């Protein structure tokens, strides 16, 4: 039975090689504890998933890691350096790329423009006032490659407001990939997708697995169990379990707090 204590989800001996180290990360909103001393290590190359019921603090965790929310306690280390108080853009420059749960794109630009901007962000400063950036192959080519990786190359010239929901989600991933990130922070990439689009996305994530370190926040259990090397379960801002998929599936605390609840509602 779940005793109420926070689990430490570091790998102990793996600390030295962890790409992302979260140590005692805490965030309160008034009386609500959205992140309660979260401790978590993610070694380079791992596909790590974070699951939890609604209100578990998943979105807060993404915000804390991306830098949009500042923690009240604890520390985040990325590749050995402390990033706990770094602004969003500096984290991005270190190689921490994210996708948004609610699609967040530049709607009056084409798909390729969107990805090219993500590339541009990591090619030095943008105080270049004269040359047509849309003709710079240094920006367009990597953007095109990123679009191909997510299977969106054919829609490169389409404006974002002409893309379907599924295509926009793919574009989200392409933009995150374009920066050649070291850690990919994916916030419910399957949200609002039909079964076919979801299957496509799962296949894409499977291809990314191993190549880049991924932290996936997800609702869809099937995806998580199929893809993740390790899973962290959040409930009320607390890590209640952490481990390989098989371990998580059989963990009584998880069953009660999350899976059981879902089953009662008929698999959500």
């Amino acid at each position: 039975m779940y005793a109420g204590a926070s689990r430490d989800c570091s790998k102990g001996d793996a600390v030295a090689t962890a790409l992302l180290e979260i140590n005692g990360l805490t965030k309160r909103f008034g009386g609500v504890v959205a992140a309660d001393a979260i401790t978590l290590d993610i070694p380079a190359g791992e596909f790590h998933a974070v699951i939890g019921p609604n209100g578990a603090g998943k979105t807060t965790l993404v915000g804390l890691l991306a830098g949009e929310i500042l923690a009240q306690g604890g520390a985040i280390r990325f590749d050995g350096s402390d990033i706990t108080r770094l602004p969003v853009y500096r984290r991005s420059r270190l190689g921490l790329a994210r996708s948004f749960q609610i699609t967040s794109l530049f709607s009056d630009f084409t798909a390729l423009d969107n990805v090219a901007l993500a590339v541009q962000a990591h090619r030095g400063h943008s105080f270049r006032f004269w040359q047509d950036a849309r003709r710079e192959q240094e920006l367009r080519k990597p953007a095109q490659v990123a679009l191909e990786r997510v299977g969106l190359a054919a829609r490169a010239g389409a404006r974002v407001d002409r893309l379907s929901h599924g295509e926009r989600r793919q574009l989200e991933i392409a933009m995150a990939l374009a920066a050649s990130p070291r850690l990919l922070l994916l916030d419910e990439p399957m949200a609002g997708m039909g079964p076919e689009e979801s299957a496509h996305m799962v296949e894409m994530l499977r291809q990314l697995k191993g190549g880049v370190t991924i932290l996936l926040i997800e609702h869809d259990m099937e995806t998580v169990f199929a893809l993740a090397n390790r899973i962290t379960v959040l409930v009320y801002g607390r890590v209640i379990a952490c481990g390989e998929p098989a371990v998580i599936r059989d963990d009584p605390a998880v069953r009660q707090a999350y899976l059981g609840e879902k089953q009662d509602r008929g698999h959500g």
Partner: protein
Amino acid sequence: MTASLDPSLEAAPKSLVTVRSAFTAVLLAFLALLPLYVALTGNAFVLTLFTRIVIMAIGAVSLNLIMGYGGMVSFGHAAYLGIGGYAVGILAKEGVDSGFAQWPVAVAASALYAVVVGALSLRTRGVYFIMITLAFAQMIYYVAIGLDRYGGDDGLTIYRRSQFGGLIDLSNKTLFYYLCLVLLIASIYMVSRLINSRFGLTIRGSRSNDRRMRAIGFPTFRYRLVCFVIAGALCGLAGALLANHTNFISPALMHWTRSGDLIVMVVLGGLGSLFGPLIGTVAFLLLEEALSRVTEYANLILGPVLLLVAIYVRGGIEGLLEGRRSGYRAP
């Protein structure tokens, strides 16, 4: 590398000859040939009117850069007209009548003011941004009223236009008009390069989705600030021209209604389009001029006209020419 690799490039330019480009070409030709018409008819008033239109268009181009492309609605843009104008006026009064000194000072002072206003206002958004830019402009307005040595509320007459050491004689009205027109075309060209450069895409991306821009690694504040300063400097130049045009400066130059007029010109012409500010300025000032001849209550007619344009032609006159009836390109 060929453009065929890049589908978005092929999609962008449609037909070269459109209603819009034809209209723009005719307008530019008209502006270029105007002094000829004036010489033939001897109607000097038209030249005076259009010199003013061309100068105000530079101000509108400047405002469009931050408002149309950067999403920064500055409600204090007339302050730059004032600062540029007062730089010329004050220096002239103190005996410095060289344009080589006056104009750079006008531009630099405007840029400096923009740095201060931008550094504070760009930390806010929406209505707050509008209010802060307005508040600063009002402050400058009252500072000008307090300048007793330079005429205070009554303003200051400039007895000698900026001198350029025999290079160009600004008291020649035709020459002065052409100088303004060249500067206008140059500023539109500058903006056209700017908005498609890396810098320009950063600014436009920030208008479209600032949060995402930061998430993909752009420190957007500094880019927006630099854009704000560029626009301020450009409008300061327009102020210097305006002072030379009217041979007179007064606080009225930067009254808040002037800032409102500039916004109207930009919106009327077409927010975020290259020639929109020019078209909007021509339309607005001609309409104002024509209506003021017919009736004392010009604004009573001008107001509803602008309202109709704002409601029914969201892309402004530019959008109308392009065949767009509603819904300008994304907020």
